């Protein structure tokens, strides 16, 4: 009884830790809303107040937003926290943080269902709770995090269905498994493949219950019909899919252009083979160790000194976990299923135009974390339990008591150690050493995320735009016109695409009015007194009573009289980002 209490307490503690790491100072880290987030929150307000997005589209499925047609589910989900908590910047991050934290208990349930071992499931849940990629993406408004939650919930129900052929599960599971497919395109590709593998691996169990399989697949197909319709016929969704597909990859285009045959059929065959080869190469690159464990989250500009989606200490644990899973649990299809999931969930990242897209592989990182957790369990088990582990000895643990749990009240308890004094000391020393490494690694991630990330990726976070917007509104009454140049950048000029969203959101601009006043033409974007367009100082300085906010890329700041420069905006690293200059007239 006490053991069960301890386990529940441990699970509660892990979930609480997960919530803490995802919600603590959510408004401060990342330091401000990026362009995706600000567009999402203003679209949330716009939908709540007018039922339309800022461009006047009624309840769109895909939001044109900043030009890339965002799938709208996250915006609609975020309406709930907006209505509950009101208009705060961090409200847009609540949904992903919430579902990100809920993934922890779901992973616990899934692993427990598969491995029948409480301690192992707890360790896996703990690793997911502190997983850098889960924390990173949960703290920004990102729908894939919600997709990952539903995917693991679906997988858990799937495994449960395998054990218990209940009608409730039979109807619920396929429905739950379609949620992630609606939420994020990566899951739209991965979930069907996972289901195919599931039915192949466990085909023997379904031989006598063919009817169940038919019902399951029928429900699943019916539930995804609207999705298929949307993919085929919604121009926004199709545009989004095409714009991120592998065919936009400039390297693939280059490879295809190298094909030199006169014969059209041969050219077509070669193009397809080249595409498949390119795709395969890209897929394999997703498993680059440096990317996974060293720099994949792209939080710094310092080459290998960054942080990966996974902790570096997870690498040996992952290898140990994989090794023991293969070696000890030979015929267990559930283990093969986990490895297949790992292989499948990296496919979506491979078929897009970016070399690496960690945001499409979050589920893969979670699976690696799970295997790392299993690795730690095996390691601890072999270190602290003298009796050799045999999976067979834990097969009867359906009530959740592992061999480890039965022989000890927890990891590292001296009661289980029967070896010599020095050997015990060595083990404790080893444990202490491992603990220090894990702690330092965790603190390293926290440091990179909370400090270095803002300095190094200020531009990518669109750091100065909140300050610029607030300042512009503070000067709203003093000028007839406020011109903002979207070109900015720390190392090279890039075009900011959500300046109008920043201005509208931080100016509490009524969406209904924005929808009416919004005017986009070749020169730029106009609403209220604001002109968002490229600044030509030689011409624009002659505009009467205007405020020009522009970056040094377009403003000859050294030749402008300092009296006219009324404000300077810096990137987070204190390098100049923008200047606010009043015109000479």
């Amino acid at each position, binding site marked *: 009884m006490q053991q069960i209490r301890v386990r529940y307490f441990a699970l509660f503690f892990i979930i609480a830790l997960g919530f803490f790491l995802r919600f603590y100072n959510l408004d401060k880290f990342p330091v401000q809303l990026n362009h995706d987030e600000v567009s999402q929150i203003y679209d949330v307000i716009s939908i709540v107040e007018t039922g339309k997005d800022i461009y006047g589209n009624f309840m769109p499925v895909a939001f044109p937003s900043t030009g890339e047609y965002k799938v709208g589910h996250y915006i609609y989900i975020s309406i709930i926290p907006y209505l509950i908590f009101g208009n705060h910047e961090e409200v847009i991050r609540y949904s992903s943080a919430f579902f990100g934290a809920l993934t922890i208990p779901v992973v616990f349930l899934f692993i427990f269902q598969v491995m029948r071992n409480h301690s192992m499931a707890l360790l896996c849940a703990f690793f997911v709770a502190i997983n850098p990629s889960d924390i990173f993406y949960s703290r920004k408004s990102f729908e894939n995090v919600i997709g990952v939650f539903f995917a693991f919930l679906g997988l858990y129900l799937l495994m449960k269905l395998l054990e218990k052929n209940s009608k409730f599960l039979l109807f619920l599971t396929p429905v739950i498994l379609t949620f992630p497919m609606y939420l994020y395109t990566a899951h739209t590709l991965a979930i069907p493949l996972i289901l195919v593998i599931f039915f192949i691996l466990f085909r023997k169990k379904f031989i006598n219950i063919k009817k169940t399989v038919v019902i399951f697949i029928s429900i699943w197909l019916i539930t995804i019909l609207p999705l298929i319709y949307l993919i085929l016929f919604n121009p926004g969704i199709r545009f989004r899919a095409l714009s991120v597909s592998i065919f936009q990859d400039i390297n693939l285009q280059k*490879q295809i252009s*190298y*094909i*030199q045959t006169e014969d059209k059929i041969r050219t077509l065959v*070669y193009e397809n*083979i*080249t595409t498949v*080869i*390119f795709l*395969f*190469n*890209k897929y*394999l*690159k997703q*498993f*680059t*160790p*440096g990317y996974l*464990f*060293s720099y994949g989250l792209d939080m*710094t500009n*310092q*080459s*290998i*000194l960054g942080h990966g989606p996974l902790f*570096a200490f997870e*690498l040996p644990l992952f290898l140990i976990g994989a*090794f023991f899973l*293969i*070696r000890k649990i*030979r015929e267990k299809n559930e283990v093969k299923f986990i490895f297949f999931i790992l292989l499948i969930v990296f496919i979506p990242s491979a078929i897009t135009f970016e070399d690496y897209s960690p945001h499409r592989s979050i589920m893969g990182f979670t699976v690696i974390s799970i295997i790392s957790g299993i690795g730690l369990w095996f390691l601890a088990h072999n270190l602290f339990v003298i009796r050799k582990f045999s999976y067979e000895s834990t097969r009867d643990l359906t009530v959740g008591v592992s061999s480890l749990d039965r022989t000890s009240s927890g990891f590292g308890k001296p009661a289980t150690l029967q070896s010599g004094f020095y050997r015990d000391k060595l083990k404790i020393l080893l444990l202490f050493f491992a603990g220090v490494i894990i702690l*330092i690694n965790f*603190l*390293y991630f926290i*440091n*990179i995320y909370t*400090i*270095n990330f803002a*300095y*190094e990726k200020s531009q990518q976070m669109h750091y100065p735009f909140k300050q610029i917007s607030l300042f512009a509104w503070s000067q709203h009454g003093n000028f007839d016109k406020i011109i903002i140049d979207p070109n900015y950048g720390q190392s090279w000029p890039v075009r900011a695409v959500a300046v109008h969203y920043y201005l509208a959101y931080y100016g509490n601009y009524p969406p209904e009015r924005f929808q009416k006043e919004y005017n986009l033409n070749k020169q730029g974007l106009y609403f209220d007194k604001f002109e968002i367009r490229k600044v030509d100082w030689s011409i624009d300085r002659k505009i009467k009573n205007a405020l020009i906010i522009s970056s040094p890329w377009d403003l000859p700041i050294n030749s402008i009289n300092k009296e006219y420069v009324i404000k300077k905006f810096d990137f987070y*690293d204190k390098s100049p980002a923008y200047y606010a200059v009043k015109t000479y007239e």
Partner: protein
Amino acid sequence: MQKIIFVFIFILAFTLRINDLSFPFFTVDEARISYRGYTLSHFGKDELGRSFPVLFNASDDYKLPVVSYLSAASIFVFGKNDFGARIAFILIGSFIPILIYKICFSLFSRKDLSLITALIITFSPVLIFLSKIPNEPIVLLFLFSLFFLLMLKKLTLRKNILLLIIILFVVLTSKLAWLVLLFLIPLTIFIFNKNLNFSKKISLSLILLIIPISAFIFYMNISQARRSINENNISLFYNLTIENGLNRLRGEGLEEGINPLFEKILFNKSAYIFAGFMHWLDQLQPAVFFGEFDPNGYFSFSNQGVFQKILVIPFILGLWIMIQKKSQKTMLLFLYSLVLTFPANFKFPQTSKELIILVIPIYAIIIAHGFLDLKRLYAKIIIFIVVLELVFLFSNFASTKMNTNTTRPEWVISVLKDSFDQSLVSKQVYISDDITSDLITYFQWHNPVSQDKDTKKIPLPYKVKSTMLGNIQLLRSQDTLESCDDETKTAIFLGSREINKATGNYLLIKTYVDSLRENRAYFLRRDKCNKLE
């Protein structure tokens, strides 16, 4: 029966390697080795006029002698042509599968496994590619395979002497091998040799280790050699990226008011170990073996990994079996491969393709294990896809040619031929140095120029030869074309950078396009001379 198998494997490997002999076009370094082979074999001097040197120059490092002298021997027999320059490496590459067969058979006593491993080696795109060009890795792999095979046999005095000779050759082939030998010699002797007792193993290890250690000591006494080692072999410790990154990240923390000691704990010199370790693992990732081995085309075809892509399936299966069945020998070989490639740690941020090539046979054995465990139907499907991949590879060399448009500029041959012809009829030929890098080296290899005549009376040949060769002179970016009163004919070959300088009455005779069908060079003529300022 075994002899028939060997003949079959050799013919197959040789055919695949000799096919389309002139492909791939040489890089500057490969052209230099080939030309050096010619000058060494015919004049007893290298391309810079030094008599039978031990160390040679390359684009970015000093090179050891084995590959150059191997080229010399080959060119001496077969002449100054593609066949002469490549045949020695083709033969070496064709013998490697046989050696691997023998190693595999000695280890596992299984004919089927040995044959499949040898065939995987035979079909390896990287090994096919490397067998067609003068390079160190293929020679190293051959020598290491010989060494390993001998270690598996009962050692006699003759074999011991042979071992010494092999190690000597290895040491004279590549600097990187010195570091590898430090691990490889004791490891191979202690793990894989079953015939020696402990003290004999120690003695043999020490005797063999003397050779690389002596080479290292000797090398470090040569001026510039230390810098060469630092920059090319242990660049991890001399790379400023890590140091600058650490300082910057720590500085950002300090600016935010974080405790300096805390920042020091997080950002310190241990980052070097981590960077090296991750770099090492990056070299061993599946994408290198089954994806793309070398995107730059120095070591492999475009888009090709070490093995055919489909073989990733038997590889995973092989690993799975290796772990499940506790196959100790395979496991040891796998760990051995990690040790072999360990020096990659110190080469950050440079890649260590040479080391990866050394472990190809080990991975082939794992693949063969997996392959033999496949059901017959799946095995047939995989064989079919392997054949398809090979057909695609051999029918699509054009893709590699275009991909290596800069590093292997095949299109430059016509410029070289025309400029040589013009040098015979014109008083002066100018070639701008932006047409391709180190044009003179290509010129010497592809044209019948006489090295002895060119460099005989030049005290510092390297300095002069980089800009002038007989009546051919290179135009640098700072040079300008000026007309003068001399009526002698001058031929001018300009690249894209220089073409705008040719203002006035220049007659465009010919335009040269590169492999991407873009204009890269122009042959111009003006009947008045063009003076350089």
